């Protein structure tokens, strides 16, 4: 391979690996917005909790990598369910107007409490591990650590399972039904309270899983959730809110874009490029690149 195609290959490889995890985060964020109309600004904190979960299970309790990651997923699922039942459910009963603004403020509050709670409990230090799976793989003279490859594979398998769940199971169909017409869903017998709790918990699970997978690359730290949160919002703005399928492509696209900007213009420029694109999208295509026009606008 010549220099140019080598560089291109490197960009695609790094970008896709990075994008797979953005997709994992963005799918959860998109799900909660689509089904519950909650712009979740605490999504990054569940990513942070996932990282801490797997850090403690891996280093203190000496679980294997897979069980640590799975336990982090289960843990964040339970925390998400508790948060929905104790915070969003009571708010839903009382708030009829300004739901989006109210939940935005609530999630912002949750985010601050969780960040500082983590700081109080575990201190301001980075807690990481060197590697889940020691070793690397060589692909066309590039060395990629096993962890990155495994992380990408886990992310893709999770997204695939999740997609099957949403499209092929009764529960998954009910979640999509609630996102399209809440009254219609309760008319056919769907218990909205159950679906709301399940949706929020699943979204937290996806974020927690991402945090756990990336532990060897970005160590657990109280404020580590801020960056991934912004990245997931970027994906959502890019592809359109509440469009779960498109957030998968969106995640990969953002991963590629950032890697390209990083390698072409140098470190620090990836955010400039991302934010410039967000501004352009908001001005020229505020519903996102893949807003579902044909289907949604004809709806009653």
């Amino acid at each position, binding site marked *: 391979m010549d220099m140019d195609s080598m560089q291109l290959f490197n960009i695609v490889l790094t970008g896709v690996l990075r994008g797979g995890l953005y997709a994992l985060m963005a799918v959860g964020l998109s799900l909660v917005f689509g089904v519950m109309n909650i712009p979740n600004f605490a999504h990054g904190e569940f990513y942070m909790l996932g990282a801490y979960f797997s850090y403690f299970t891996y280093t203190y309790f000496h679980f294997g990598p897979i069980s640590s990651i799975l336990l982090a997923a289960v843990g964040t699922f339970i925390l998400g369910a508790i948060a929905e039942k104790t915070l969003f459910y009571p708010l839903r009963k009382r708030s009829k107007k300004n739901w989006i603004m109210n939940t935005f403020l609530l999630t912002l509050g949750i985010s601050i409490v969780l960040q500082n709670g983590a700081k109080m409990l575990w201190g301001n230090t980075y807690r990481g591990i060197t590697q889940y799976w020691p070793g690397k793989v060589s692909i066309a003279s590039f060395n990629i650590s096993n962890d990155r490859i495994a992380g990408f594979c886990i992310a893709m398998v999770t997204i695939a399972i999740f997609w099957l769940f949403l499209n092929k199971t009764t529960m998954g169909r009910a979640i999509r039904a609630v996102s*399209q017409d809440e009254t219609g869903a309760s008319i*056919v017998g769907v218990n909205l309270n159950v679906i709301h709790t399940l949706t929020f918990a699943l979204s937290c699970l996806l974020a927690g899983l991402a945090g756990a997978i990336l532990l060897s690359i970005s160590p657990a730290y109280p404020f580590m959730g801020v960056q991934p949160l912004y990245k997931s919002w970027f994906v959502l703005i890019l592809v359109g809110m509440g469009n779960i399928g498109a957030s998968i492509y969106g995640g990969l696209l953002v991963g590629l874009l950032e890697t390209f900007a990083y390698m072409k213009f140098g470190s620090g420029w990836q955010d400039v490029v991302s934010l410039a694109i967000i501004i352009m999208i908001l001005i020229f295509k505020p519903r996102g690149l893949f807003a*579902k026009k044909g289907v*949604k606008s*004809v709806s*009653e």
Partner: protein
Amino acid sequence: MLEISGIDTSYGNLQVLWDVSLNIGEGEIVAVLGPNGSGKTTMLKSIMNLVSVKRGKIMFLGQDITGKPIHELTRLGLAFVPEERHLFPAMTVMENLLLGAYTIRNKKIIKETFNRVFELFPRLAERKKQYAGTMSGGERQMLAIARGIMSNPKMLILDEPSMGLAPQNVLAVFETIKKLSAEKVTVLIVEQNVNTTLTVADRAYVMEQGRIVMEGSSSQLQGDDHIRKMYMGIA
């Protein structure tokens, strides 16, 4: 089967229903007629707990269902087809129907109900893969009724099924109601299309300004002077 006794319903401070009572026996087709804004839809929403009842009681199959959440009513055998339809626009006809059978766990029963629904609405069988949001008004109304039938209800509640439909579709909808009643499904139907409704209904109630002002068998009402003047335009 369904017994409403003396309900009052208000939106905030505005009282819409005043002491409304009605009674539907098993296998009957009962219509509620009345002009726009007379409270017909509010009465249905009171049954389905989409608005809360201030006073009075609603019984279904001997059970007090006043204030019961709507998803539990579906499990009891009530199917509601609202005027706004509330379909799932980004899902296919098939998925909408599958969700109609959400409360049924038995796969065999779901399959049988599918056959029954496709027999009633051959048009839907041709369009299984089409998205609900891209269908015409008549097709959507059929899909909404079909989705209601998918739950194998003991009683079907229809709110203005002929609303916005072309005449031949109106006839198709009323044909379906007749067929359903032949299958022992009880039907409560709210309509403004008085003429056609009285030809399929066994009995009817007339609502005006939030009160039941008249009730009787369809033939009685068809001969009544007030009804002929107000609703049929016959002097």
